[in-house]
């Protein structure tokens, strides 16, 4: 026997033979071959015997020995009649389990619909600014300052930068700069409106970016001073049906602007949002700024580049950096220049401290969260579908048995289930598109998701949806197909099918996964809602309640503000009145600041507000040190500077009061320090900022009112307004509305996530329902036998529910760390964030447990109450 172990036929040849030879002949032929081999070894030696063995294996390949393709013996998958049969059987089983099947199909449809909706949202966010033909060659120049407190990113650059790039940097084909025009009034005849989305721009702007001109010449429209390009919507608003070209619009009741072009509506996926473009040559630096367009330290302009097709952005960045390094511009030594590709501008706007008005900002983390959520919802819906389909199919033992007895091999039975699953998913897709279509108005108005309103918009993505659906159908159908086709005919014909332990393991893990996701999403939505209300209610640093903003014309503000203030204060409900350049809606001025007497030539950008007396009283901003502007000090108008805490830290001042600072080309003295307040978004860190008395005329009046009926108050203010006879639209806003608007996006996001968490819980319960029926069916006999032996209903209920309690517990344990991680990542995007607390997890855990128990007990009680005879008699 020892010898045997070493002398054996070549294994590779053996394996090859086993691979090709039919099972029926394999044993006898291989036996003959081996027998011959061993006798050959004795007569002719090992080597020759092996050689002969190999040759024989090859010689044996012929029509008698080769394996036949299984399907050849039966029927083809592509056979139309078989396909017809599959569809017929699908419809029959749909009819037989109508309620269960429709729950199943609609569950998947809801899942698919939410994915389609999120898809549209994400698709738009990821394709911002993609309508510009030269999008790959457009860059924005931005800068950042390294500070002890961190890096401060600034999206705007000085006015001298664009001309310098134009004249001295090669590889740049076009340069343009934009200046936001703040709020002004525009009028045609009697029609007078205040417009916010207005920029100063030159013709290069229209040439670099592709906004469609309806009339006017792109290349010259913004060349001449006092030219204005308006959108079609504005043309309708100001001129009605009359062609606006060549007509004029009166700017601030003082300057006539001639309409030189009309452009189509700015697409909603443009990061710049404007209604008017005024030619850059019209722009005059307001009196009091003490800066001009040759400044290198007034970072208040957006600079965009169109680079040559073969130019290297990195090389251009280097040359731009060198522009700053020249001696005469040395005020900004520690500035880092960045050239930001157009496609990043929207999504990566989170890091900039001061973006400026009329710029749309996106949020990458939000997109990631949504992609993760939609992926989870899709997975969840798919798992549900699998669980429910399997549960439904458990009653189809007889069908499977008959099919098998009539000669269906395993693959054919599996095909039936897979085709069924694909048919179901396609029906779901159809329903999903219907749901999306019907819920469109809601998502557009409440959540701000734009969805195509025409057929083509959907058709364009249809192949993608179709493909995803088919894949889900295949995957979801594969499990029941695999399990159910494996039963032996006798077993199957007996009727009820029992689940194998391996099958249970899989369904169990699918269910645990569903719970993990459900718990995670509930917790996440709790955290998001908590964070949003935290942002809205606390830590603004000022009181947003009971503050009214009124916009008045600048010429009136300059001469008549005191008259107005006195008139307003007549009303006992009006407590304080002040004026300000910016209204807490994200915008601010910015200028360079340097401590006088310090060697450091380093320039810092300081955001600033220009505000009048009583500003702190109106806004309820806390004064930490020193004093605020006062009429008792005549010099305040020219030289006083109030800093916030951050700028004190940034400038490194230990004893700030009395420090002399050259700010915006004026020497000023710090008279007070205020607590940090949020003048921009709570997403960003509060940037260093200062408050000065207005050096340019502001246009906002802020009024603190006593709490009480709003309507009455508005009427009172409007009466004062009418008495003053201002030639300007009455424009009143509540500060809390403004703040609300700033966090609209988050608000909508939290609504969306809440919606989806409700959805996933629903889906999770559907899946649970399926699983419960699945496993109760398998335990039916056990229940019957236990009852005949005298088990009480409570004992039966315990038997049926305990395993699910375990599953939910496991799901909680898995879900907590994952949710903690995701929530923490998201919260880190906010400078002011809540902590994650244990009760958030507890609430979601208990909530899910309750819902799950309701789902389970419905089935369990029904089963426990069954008469044991009806169960046991079936065998």
């Amino acid at each position: 026997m020892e010898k045997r172990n070493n002398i054996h036929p070549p294994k590779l040849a053996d394996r090859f033979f086993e691979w090709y030879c039919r099972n029926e002949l394999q044993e006898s032929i291989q036996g003959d071959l081996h027998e011959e081999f061993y006798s050959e070894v004795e007569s002719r030696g090992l080597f020759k015997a092996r050689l002969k063995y190999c040759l024989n294996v090859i010689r044996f390949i012929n029509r008698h020995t080769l394996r036949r393709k299984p399907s050849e013996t039966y029927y083809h998958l592509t056979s139309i009649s078989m396909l017809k049969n599959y569809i017929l059987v699908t419809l029959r089983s749909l009819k037989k389990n109508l309620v269960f099947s429709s729950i199943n199909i609609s569950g998947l449809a809801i899942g698919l619909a939410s994915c389609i909706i999120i898809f549209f949202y994400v698709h738009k966010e990821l394709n911002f600014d993609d309508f510009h033909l030269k999008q790959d060659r457009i860059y924005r120049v931005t800068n950042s300052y390294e500070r002890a407190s961190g890096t401060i990113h600034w999206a705007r650059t000085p006015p001298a930068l664009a001309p310098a790039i134009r004249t001295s940097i090669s590889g740049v084909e076009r340069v343009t700069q934009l200046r936001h025009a703040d709020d002004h009034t525009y009028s045609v005849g009697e029609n007078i409106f205040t417009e916010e989305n207005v920029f100063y721009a030159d013709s290069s702007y229209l040439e670099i970016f592709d906004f469609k001109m309806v009339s006017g010449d792109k290349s010259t429209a913004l060349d001449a001073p006092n030219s204005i390009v308006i959108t079609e919507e504005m043309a309708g608003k100001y001129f009605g049906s009359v062609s606006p070209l060549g007509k004029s619009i009166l700017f601030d009741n003082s300057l006539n602007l001639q309409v030189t072009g009309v452009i189509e509506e700015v697409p909603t996926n443009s990061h710049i949002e404007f209604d008017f473009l005024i030619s850059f040559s019209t722009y005059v630096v307001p009196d009091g700024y003490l800066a001009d367009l040759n400044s290198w330290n007034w970072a208040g302009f957006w600079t965009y580049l169109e680079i040559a097709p073969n130019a290297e952005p990195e090389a251009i960045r280097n040359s731009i950096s060198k522009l700053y390094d020249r001696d005469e511009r040395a005020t900004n030594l520690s500035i880092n220049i960045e050239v930001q590709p157009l496609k990043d501008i929207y999504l990566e706007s989170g890091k900039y401290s001061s973006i400026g008005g009329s710029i749309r900002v996106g949020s990458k983390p939000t997109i990631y969260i949504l992609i993760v959520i939609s992926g989870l919802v899709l997975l969840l819906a798919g798992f549900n579908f699998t669980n429910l389909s399997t549960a439904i199919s458990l009653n189809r033992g007889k069908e499977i048995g008959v099919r098998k007895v009539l000669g269906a091999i395993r693959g054919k039975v599996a095909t039936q289930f897979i085709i069924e699953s694909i048919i179901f998913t396609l029906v779901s897709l159809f329903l999903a598109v219907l749901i999306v279509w019907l819920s469109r108005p809601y998502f557009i108005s409440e959540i701000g998701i734009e969805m195509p309103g025409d057929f083509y918009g959907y058709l364009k993505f249809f192949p993608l949806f179709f493909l995803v659906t088919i894949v889900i159908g295949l995957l979801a159908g594969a499990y029941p197909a695999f399990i159910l086709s494996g039963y032996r005919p006798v077993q199957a014909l007996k009727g009820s099918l029992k689940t194998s332990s391996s099958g249970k393991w899989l369904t169990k893990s699918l269910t645990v996964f569903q719970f993990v996701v459900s718990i995670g999403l509930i917790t996440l939505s709790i955290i998001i809602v908590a964070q949003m209300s935290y942002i809205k209610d606390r830590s603004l640093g000022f009181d947003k309640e009971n503050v009214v903003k009124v916009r008045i014309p600048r010429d009136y503000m300059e001469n008549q503000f005191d008259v107005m203030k006195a008139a307003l204060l007549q009303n006992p409900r009006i407590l304080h009145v002040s004026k300000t350049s910016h209204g807490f809606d994200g915008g601010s001025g910015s200028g360079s600041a340097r401590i006088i007497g310090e060697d450091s030539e380093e320039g810092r950008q300081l955001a600033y507000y220009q505000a009048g007396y009583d500003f702190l009283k109106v806004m309820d901003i806390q004064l930490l040190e020193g004093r605020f502007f006062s009429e008792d000090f005549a010099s305040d108008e020219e030289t006083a500077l109030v800093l916030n805490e951050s700028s004190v830290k940034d400038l490194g001042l230990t004893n700030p009061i009395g420090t002399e600072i050259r700010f915006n080309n004026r020497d000023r003295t710090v008279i007070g320090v205020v607590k940090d307040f949020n003048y921009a978004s709570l997403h960003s860190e509060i940037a260093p900022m200062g408050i000065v008395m207005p050096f340019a005329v502001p246009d906002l009046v802020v009024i603190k009112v006593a709490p009480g009926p709003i309507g009455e108050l508005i009427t009172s203010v409007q009466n004062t307004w009418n008495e003053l006879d201002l030639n300007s639209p009455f424009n009143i806003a509540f500060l809390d509305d403004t703040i609300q608007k700033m966090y609209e996006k988050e608000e909508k996001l939290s609504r969306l996530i809440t919606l989806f968490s409700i959805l996933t819980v629903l889906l999770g319960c559907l899946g649970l329902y399926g699983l419960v029926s699945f496993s109760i069916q398998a335990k039916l006999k056990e229940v019957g036998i236990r009852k005949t032996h005298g088990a009480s209903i409570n004992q039966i209920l315990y038997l049926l529910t305990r395993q699910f309690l375990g599953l939910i517990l496991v799901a909680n344990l898995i879900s907590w760390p994952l949710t903690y991680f995701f929530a923490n990542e998201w919260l880190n995007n906010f400078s002011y964030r809540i902590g994650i607390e244990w009760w958030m997890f507890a609430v979601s855990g208990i909530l899910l447990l309750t819902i799950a128990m309701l789902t389970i007990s419905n089935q369990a009680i029904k089963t426990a109450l069954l008469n044991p005879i009806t169960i046991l008699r079936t065998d």
Partner: protein
Amino acid sequence: MEYKLGEFEEIVLLLVAVQFKEAYGLSITKAIEEELERSVTLSSVHTALYRLEEKGFVKSEIGGATSERGGRRKRLFTITATGLKALEASREVRNQLWNMIPKTAMG
């Protein structure tokens, strides 16, 4: 009825009849090599056997494992009634032809 038998098939069929109830692929191969002193491969004998089975001249059953075969069972072939008739028919044809040879030719 016509019984078509190739020369090689006839030999194999004869040997199946000779090795009554003991005939299988290798035994027939060995017999051909020893009795007829003619070299033949295992696979061609097998092929002939399968062909004969298709024609209904032999039938096969599984049985008789030995240790040389690693415990694998043999496919044992036995001749059927049809097979016997085919052999007889073939012999008759030969006999007829034998009888037709003129005496003179035999010397």
